[in-house]
């Protein structure tokens, strides 16, 4: 029914009844207020003020009411569904004709609203939402059972318990306690030795000593890094369709190390948001900005790069909102926040702070590699100093050389080109002010890029291709390969509608590789011939298997180059006639592999001069030579010398010595980082959040409801970061302490860790939250101190045993009359099995690893395209789960089964499910089987000789306590039953045990594997109790 029918009724009512109605006055309280109350105030009332409107109060409603004129009242227009906005009530049934009529009459009659009806004006002066006021240290509450209180935390907890007439649980037994705190602080169970030491320590500080030991363990950083990485949406791949592998583990290790050295949280945040802007930023500080760069990258064919840069920007905002501010800001991407006082413009003002960077990918080196590099630099400088020392006339000679190479270069006309979209295959090119093209988005595996152009020259003798570096390319390029390299398989030019191919006499370049076989990583199953990289002549040799290669080796390779292709016969009458250049790029691995050699940024030009050849001086050096000698900086002079010395014939031995040194340069790794643009982008408010509809320009700024920006600070990302961790920032510290609390107790003091806004639930212990936040900030933002405070509390140390009374009164354990008990996070599920079995490799940090996984997952049709999963053998097989390679589109199944997020979006609160798929994983998955086998062997070798002793040994390794008699009995029964079956040959022992160490009896080992498997599958084993 419909609008028309309603209208009809409305019309009849109004027109037909006009005479009688004229006298009838609509009374607000009797006629209108009930309509507001039943139809409007759900969203526009006391509880919620969507769009900032409330209709329960005269004063507040005035803005949509035009007394005496319904037609001019916004209220009426919206309930009628006029204009391009949705009809009110949005999402609900339309008002009836009677209701509409009543409203119209009321408005037309002057919209009288007697005082005292509805909410009073004074009540509208809403108190600022608690979370948006900076926390102050609350006084400790008085409690009756003061002896229970160990830390201030306990006073807050106990006060609430006493109010509820509840008493705390007794302290957990020592075995439970050490296992709990070990799992919380390191994600690993205590070793049997650690447990023995703790049990033997009768001093009053025994527990405290354990807490300090655990906080000093390198595994502390691993455990808590994982919590942070969820919010940082860390993954090892790009996401979206291609989901290519990326290198981001330097960032992951940065987090681990930062936590281990207890980098204060304010610094921790500043470095992740703006480490690159710190004075003399270290590699580590730049790596930290990987936080923002953990966004996904879409290289799907045909994708608009700007659209997905914006998606990444929104994702960064979301990570900042959820992960650091604890405020949901996403809504304001499209419109003013409906519940919180965040305006859309304010969202884009914050956005403007982040909209200042290149999407850079930089080379990074481990400490060992950095030392090697320092050695190379030192050796190079020493060698060069030696040359200068031995040849004091070097400066004159260099100046003479400069004159030699100063011969005028040919004049080149930069070509404006049209890209053939089909040949580009979905790659997009942006045109830079200097006329160069930058390839973005999709990367074709086999590309014959067609560029059409015209020249104003009457005669063309040669074409020049410049390969240029760019901060948006991997390692600055000039190519799009993972190491910034490119290769040109063939360069062709056709005229006359593509029919006539021009012949080249020769090709020259400032550099070309010696002929080298293409690295195997670039192999492509569909290409059988052996492919080579080599000198620039390879680009005009007519062979698709050879290409011009520009790789000068690690540490040297990311430089601009230029090649000149000289025509056999000059092209005459060239002016205005279209010609087509084809840049064949055929030296990549199969489609969608990260291993490509496509051009990144490049520029094409032509000349009509005779004998044009490539400048033998590399572009970077040529640029220095254009600076008058007197104005060159020392570093420019050194760079010039560095190149020039390689041209001096009698210096070959020293040059060779230095070149050999550079051959030892480490390959290093890469890391996605931020690198500030020289000038930040202009940021617009985007209507409805769409980059296609930019509205007004906005300046960097912060929301009015949060703390103000520091006065006089430059409006940059560093200021934004500092603002976030200002002592007056109301949500930052609260959000962090809440997230940590949530990890300990299962639920945060605010149950919605991602949202402290007005829609968030009231904290269970508001004063405690504020006390922790203030304590945290005043304690120098030390996370270790905070952990210590929590883990030392009596509240934390309670037994987690559940009594019927407690379960009934407080099923979620929000009041904490008992200790926390819940299944550990996905990573710990796996780490516990590894640790219990003895297989765990405790190495900290390094590239991600590939534990066993079913191969089909990484192949179509499960994966979009084939993905690399070189199953780790040896020690990398048993690394902590934190190091497992994380493909976003193909999450590692065991971790996924236990609710690990896949990094698509920022996550500050994991689900904790309990499903049959989890049971299948721990019962049957390869790695879990291997841990069961190893635990069995370990038990037989080290667990004593009696079965009871062995059971105790294995049991303790899994749950950190000795079994009770009943438990031993159950396990003995299983052991004996299975041993009989294996001995009789009813079941195949070796099949279960795999290869056994010498001296073990297969049937026995198999029966123990069965026992170990049971132990590893106990609820208690994967539970923090």
């Amino acid at each position: 029914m419909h609008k028309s029918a309603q209208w009809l009724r409305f019309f009849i009512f109004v027109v037909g009844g006009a005479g009688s109605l004229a006298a009838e006055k609509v009374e607000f309280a009797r006629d209108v207020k009930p309509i507001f109350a039943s139809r409007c105030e759900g969203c526009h009332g006391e509880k919620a003020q969507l769009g900032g409107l409330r209709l329960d109060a005269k004063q507040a409603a005035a803005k949509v009411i035009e007394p005496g004129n319904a037609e001019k009242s916004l209220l009426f227009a919206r309930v009628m569904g006029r204009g391009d906005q949705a009809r009110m009530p949005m999402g609900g049934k339309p008002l009836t004709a009677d209701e509409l009529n009543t409203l119209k009459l009321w408005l037309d009659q002057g919209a009288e609203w007697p005082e005292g009806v509805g909410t009073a004006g004074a009540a509208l002066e809403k108190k600022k939402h608690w979370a948006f006021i900076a926390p102050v240290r609350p006084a400790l509450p008085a409690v009756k059972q003061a002896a229970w209180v160990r830390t201030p935390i306990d006073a807050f907890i106990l006060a609430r318990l006493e109010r509820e007439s509840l008493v705390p649980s007794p302290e957990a037994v020592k075995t439970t306690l050490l296992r709990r705190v070990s799992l919380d602080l390191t994600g690993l169970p205590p070793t049997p030795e650690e447990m023995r030491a703790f049990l033997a320590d009768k001093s009053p500080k025994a527990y405290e000593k354990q807490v300090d030991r655990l906080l000093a363990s390198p595994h502390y950083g691993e455990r808590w890094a994982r919590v942070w990485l969820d919010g940082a949406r860390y993954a090892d791949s790009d996401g979206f369709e291609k989901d290519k592998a990326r290198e981001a583990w330097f960032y992951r290790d940065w987090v681990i190390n930062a936590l281990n050295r207890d980098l204060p949280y304010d610094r921790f945040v500043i470095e992740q948001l703006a480490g690159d802007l710190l004075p003399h930023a270290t590699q580590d500080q730049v790596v930290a900005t990987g936080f923002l760069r953990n966004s996904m990258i879409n290289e799907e064919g045909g994708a608009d790069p700007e659209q997905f840069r914006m998606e990444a920007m929104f994702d960064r905002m979301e990570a900042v909102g959820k992960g650091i501010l604890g405020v949901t800001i996403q809504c304001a991407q499209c419109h003013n926040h409906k519940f919180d006082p965040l305006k859309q413009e304010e969202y884009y003002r914050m956005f403007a702070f982040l909209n200042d960077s290149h999407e850079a990918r930089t080379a990074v080196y481990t400490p060992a590699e950095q030392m090697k590099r320092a050695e190379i630099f030192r050796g190079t400088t020493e060698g060069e100093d030696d040359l200068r020392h031995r040849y004091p006339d070097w400066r004159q000679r260099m100046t003479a050389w400069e004159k030699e190479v100063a011969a005028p270069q040919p004049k080149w006309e930069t070509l404006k080109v049209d890209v053939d979209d089909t040949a580009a295959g979905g790659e997009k090119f942006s045109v830079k002010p200097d006329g160069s093209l930058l390839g973005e988005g999709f990367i074709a595996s086999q590309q014959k890029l067609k560029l059409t152009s015209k020249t104003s020259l009457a005669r063309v003798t040669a074409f020049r291709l410049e390969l240029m570096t760019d901060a948006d390319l991997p390692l600055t390029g000039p190519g799009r390969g993972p190491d910034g390299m490119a290769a040109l398989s063939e360069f062709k030019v056709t005229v006359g509608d593509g029919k006539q191919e021009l012949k080249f006499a020769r090709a020259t370049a400032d550099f070309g590789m010696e002929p080298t076989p293409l690295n195997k990583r670039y192999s492509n199953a569909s290409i059988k011939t052996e492919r080579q990289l080599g000198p620039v002549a390879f680009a005009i040799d007519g062979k698709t298997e050879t290409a011009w290669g520009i790789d000068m080796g690690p540490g040297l390779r990311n430089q601009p180059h230029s090649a000149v292709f000289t025509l056999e016969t000059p092209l005459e009458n060239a002016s205005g006639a279209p010609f087509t250049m084809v840049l064949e790029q055929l030296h990549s691995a199969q489609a969608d592999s990260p291993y490509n050699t496509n051009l990144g940024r490049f520029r094409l030009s032509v000349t009509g001069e005779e004998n044009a050849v490539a400048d033998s001086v590399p572009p970077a050096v040529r640029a220095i030579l254009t600076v008058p000698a007197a104005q060159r900086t020392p570093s420019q002079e050194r760079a010039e010398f560095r190149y020039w010395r390689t041209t001096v014939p009698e210096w070959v031995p020293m040059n060779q010595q230095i070149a050999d040194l550079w051959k030892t340069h480490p390959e290093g790794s890469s890391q996605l980082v931020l690198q500030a643009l020289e000038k930040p982008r202009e940021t617009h408010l985007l209507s409805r959040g769409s980059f296609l509809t930019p509205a007004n320009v906005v300046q960097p700024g912060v929301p009015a409801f949060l703390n103000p920006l520091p006065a006089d600070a430059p409006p940059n990302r560093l200021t934004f970061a500092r603002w976030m961790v200002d002592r007056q920032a109301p949500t930052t510290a609260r959000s962090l302490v809440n997230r940590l609390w949530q990890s300990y107790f299962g639920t945060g003091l605010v149950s919605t860790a991602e949202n402290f806004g007005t829609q968030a639930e009231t904290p269970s212990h508001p004063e405690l939250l504020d006390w922790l936040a203030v304590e945290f900030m005043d304690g120098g933002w030390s996370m270790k101190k905070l952990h210590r405070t929590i883990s030392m509390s009596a509240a934390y140390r309670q037994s987690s045993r559940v009594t019927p009374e407690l379960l009934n009164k407080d099923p979620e354990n929000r009041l904490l009359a008992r200790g926390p008990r819940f299944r550990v996070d996905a990573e710990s599920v796996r780490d516990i099995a590894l640790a219990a079995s003895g297989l765990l490799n405790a190495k900290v940090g390094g590239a991600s690893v590939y534990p066993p996984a079913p191969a089909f997952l990484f192949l179509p049709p499960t994966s979009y395209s084939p993905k690399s999963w070189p199953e780790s053998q040896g020690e990398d097989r048993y690394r902590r789960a934190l190091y497992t390679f994380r493909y976003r589109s193909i999450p590692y199944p065991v971790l996924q089964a236990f609710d690990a997020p896949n990094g698509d979006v920022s996550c500050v609160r994991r689900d904790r499910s309990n499903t049959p798929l989890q049971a299948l994983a721990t019962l049957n998955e390869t790695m879990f089987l291997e841990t069961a086998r190893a635990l069995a062997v370990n038990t037989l070798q080290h667990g004593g000789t009696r079965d009871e002793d062995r059971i105790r040994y294995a049991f303790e390794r899994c749950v950190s306590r000795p079994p009770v008699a009943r438990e031993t009995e159950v396990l003995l029964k299983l052991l004996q039953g299975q041993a009989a079956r294996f001995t009789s040959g009813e079941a195949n022992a070796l099949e279960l045990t795999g290869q056994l160490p010498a001296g073990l009896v297969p049937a026995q080992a198999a029966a123990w594997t069965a026992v170990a498997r049971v132990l590893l599958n106990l609820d208690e084993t994967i539970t923090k109790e």
Partner: protein
Amino acid sequence: MNCQDNQYRGMHPKQVSRRWFFEQCGVGLGSIALSQLMAGSANASEAVDPLAPRQPHFAPKSKRVIFLFMAGAPSHLELFDRKPELVKFDGSLPPAELLKGYRAAFINPNSKLMGSKYAFKKYGANGTELSELLPHLGEVIDDVSVIKSMVTDAFNHAPGQLLMNTGTMQFGRPSMGAWALYGLGSETRDLPSFVVFSSGTKGPSGGSSCWGSGFLPTVYQGVQFRSGGDPVLYLSNPPGVDKTMQRASLDAIRELDEAHLATEGDPEIATRINSFEMAFRMQGVAPEIMDISKEPKETLEMYGAEPGKGSFANNCLLARRLVERGVRFVQLYHEAWDQHSNLTKDLKKNCENTDRAAAALIKDLKRSGLLEDTLVIWGGEFGRTPMVQGGSDGRDHHPNAFTMWMAGGGVKRGFVMGETDDLGFNVVKDKVHVHDLHATILHLLGFDHTRLTHKFQGRNFRLTDVHGEVVKSLLA
């Protein structure tokens, strides 16, 4: 899949407590009581299990869904939407006003128009026009509603597939199947209730997020099945573990967990025991369901299924077997339809690989009566351009118009809705946005799409966000 809001955490312990402590623990934890819990009796399971069956807002027309997701985006112009004018203007440029503000993924939009590569025929009692490539669909077309007026917002695959599956182009939202489970719970104790298959030349562009649970509890996410090998990951016992040992091991685990439950009292332990028992049952049931070799020869032939092979046909047959056993939502991804080139050849091949089986699924469900309350949906993430890509045999991505079809519970039979313009470029009648499709699917499942919500980040989210109108004309 992802980052969760564990909504039932707040609810179940209390309910468990009522049963657990006051009824059972008071007299000691009896194994009889426990076995009742294990048996999944209605009261017991309801409290512990977020997948317990639930009533929707009103009586549903469909209780389960099979979504044949034709990933890559099939060409509506060759398959469903006959456009004589497009044939007529083949080789000429499209009208300039049509392209105003239009963005294409790969091509310059100002490319020549290209008529359908295939002829159309009339099928069924109503003479519904379909491509000559879809003769099998033609046989069941009188049971199907064809929607020729679909529109979407995305024109890249991953965002398009996410929009079709989760109602938004952004990652992190629950998929349709997850919403269905969230609303309806599960009718099977032995199998995952949201099952996903993949066939074709590639995996779906949107990856596992297409069937993720977003911010809903992870138990609602889709579980990938395979038609070859272990149907569910880790379903088979490891080498050397036979059924006897698996049972003995599970008995030992249960005894130890029960003993621990008796001392610790945490109902979560009972849930764990239940999970292990369900896993064991799944180990028995799933391989049997996945074994199609005992299907009658006639059925295998009808689908074109071949036991032991991974194919769309096998997956269709498996979908039927799964919904028979109470699986709520089955999604078959067949990623093969991205015909930027080789349109003529590959479209024919794709139809050969899918047409027979999709039609067989309708026939099979119909003859067993399941089609009465099973919804079958066929379609991709967007359509394809009336303009040519790359010479003469390809089409680019096109969000403005495409075709899907639906059949089964609550959907009109032998119905064609919507119209595009003469070039198949824009919808001109009865536009159905993806959000409207979602509203309609939820409606058929018994939900008012505006009321199936979940609170996250301070607001109520729904599959249709703030959009969506039920397409009433599709309803039977």
